[in-house]
């Protein structure tokens, strides 16, 4: 136990001061939140992540948002195990045909306002996997998308900037 405590104190706080920028590459469509909802979400936002067919690269970066350097919880971003508590659906990968139904069902389970963020080139437009018999293309082919974060994969900072766009 003493070793654990020592290591924790030795490590100290390693969290970076991330600065949010209004990244022009990130597109936003159709979010109509009133000022009080924005304020409410800004402090506490529950996120459910769905991999609709990604290569796992985007997942690694979403994982990294939770590491002590980025520590997304300090910004009020909390990942939930169930879509039923989620304010935001974070979707990666092209929409794989075998995931289409599961993606729709997850979306249906999310309560309003159902903000959907597409993370990565694949989620935005199908990326390198394109539109084929097995890949339907971007996530918006299956469910409506509000924020498009390009990148392969986008870095954790890029993803934070995507969240930031919701409150602008």
């Amino acid at each position, binding site marked *: 136990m003493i070793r654990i405590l020592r*290591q924790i104190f030795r490590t100290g706080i*390693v969290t970076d001061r991330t600065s949010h920028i209004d990244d022009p590459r990130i597109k936003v469509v159709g979010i109509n939140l009133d000022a009080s909802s924005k304020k409410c979400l800004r402090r506490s936002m529950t996120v459910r992540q769905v991999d609709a067919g990604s290569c796992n690269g*985007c997942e690694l970066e979403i994982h990294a948002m939770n590491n002590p350097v980025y520590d997304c919880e300090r910004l009020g971003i909390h990942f939930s*195990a169930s879509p039923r508590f989620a304010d935001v659906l974070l979707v990666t990968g092209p929409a794989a045909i075998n995931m289409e139904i599961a993606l729709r069902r997850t979306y249906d389970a999310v309560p309003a306002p159902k903000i959907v963020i597409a993370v990565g080139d694949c989620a935005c437009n199908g990326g390198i*996997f394109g*539109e084929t018999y097995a890949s339907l293309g971007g996530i918006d082919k299956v469910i409506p998308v509000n924020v498009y974060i390009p990148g392969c994969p986008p870095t954790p900072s890029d993803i934070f900037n995507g969240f930031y766009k919701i409150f602008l």
Partner: protein
Amino acid sequence: MKRLEDTLVAVFGSDATRDENINPVTCCVPAQRFAEAAGILKESSAFLCAQWTTDDTLADSHGGFSVYACFREGAQYLIVKSALSHDNPAFPSLTKHYLPAYRFERQIWSLMGVTPVGHPDSRPWIKFEDWRKDAWPLRKSFDAAKPMPRVAGQYLWLRAEGEGVYEIPVGPVHAGIIEPGHFRFQAVGETILNLEERLGYVHKGIEKRFESMSWLSAVKLAGRVSGDTTVAHSMAYSMALESMTFCHVPQRAQWLRALFLERERIANHLGDIGAICNDAAFSFMLYQCSRLKEIMLATNHKLFGHRFIMDRVVPGGVTVDIDDNAKNEIRSELDFIEKNFDKLVAIYEESSSLEDRVRNTGILSPELARQLCTVGVVARGSGLSVDCRVDNPCPPYDSLAVEAAALTSGDVHARVWVRVVEIRSSIRLIRDILNAIPASGIAGQCNGVSPDSTGFAAVEGWRGEIIYWLHAGHKGEINRCMIRDPSSVNWLALEYAIKGNIVPDFPLCNKSFNQSYSGHDL
């Protein structure tokens, strides 16, 4: 040691024709003796690495299909091939001899429509029940650009009956930030009687997509087969292509590839160790390890322009070089990581609550690991010393001392400890690489691909051996790209390892395997 092909030819006589000019040696046998050949190789204690088919309509005159099986024994690889007819393509199943053939052959039947005769399970794999029965995407006659209509259908799960037996379905969307797959448990009380995996949710048609790409641009796709293993996949693809074009890769590029590969290994192993401990409710380790991993990713970003070093390995060489400043930066980064990692390992070793969870949990016995032809971390945790860097060292590994980890207990702890040993040995390797990296260019020129040629490469990624087999059509285009991620064999091992464990230990066992869904589903 007797060569595998000699053993085969000794029995088959003129029925086996071998082609020594292809790497690896490829033996053609009559289709009806395909399984018999596998039986002989099994007796020579060869492993089955992969099994696949090609549609030769556009490639050669006979215009039918071919079935291939790749075997490995020690450092040797051998491919056995049989030509199949166009109208009724079928071959005798290898399932009598090899366990991994169960999935390989279901996949062959599902995606190419070639029948493994005598296979006990005719359910599709990767192909879902709502695809049309005759949708065989790997056939040349299949138009990959057209959307696929859905039909009604039902997947038949294995059932268990009896008093107190109940089922737990999990997925495809899991609770954490992970890829999708479905697991179905039959349990009595807390004990798991059986686990049935169902994968294929992230099937993106990657192998088919390769066929519409040019040789050089396809390396980007290879780097996205499994994003966490991007370096190893793009390296395996590049090496397979280089082997078929006789491309000369500058020495420095080979050393840089090894540098990237070892960095990928350390970063992913760090992430895994943290995540495994977290699944045993030891979150301290997760945060410490993910911080160390983040340091590596940030250095990658700074020095190589990408956090996962994606698209930096290309056919002919690499696209980024390092200078002396970069070397020093990597050295001091590694010193820091090593110092902290040693402290974490000491904590891991003396935490008895953790030990209680990881020891004797999810045991994959050495016999099973061998029968299942497992590779990589999973195999090395169960007493199999298989490692391409040791068995088949491509430069620069032939001049570096790689130490292959080997534990025999086959439990979660063994798989953690293999990773611990490998992180340490990779740190040493990187130091050696930095000290001895030769000076030269970093990009070679790949010649054109000649028609009907094949290429092959095996690379030890952080999960294990990755195999690429490439085949050029008669115009020199990509006719087939076969990808064998370690997950294609190791997923089946998880089903065996979990039997008799308690349901709450499943996440822990699953994490200790940490196989790729995307690399498996392709």
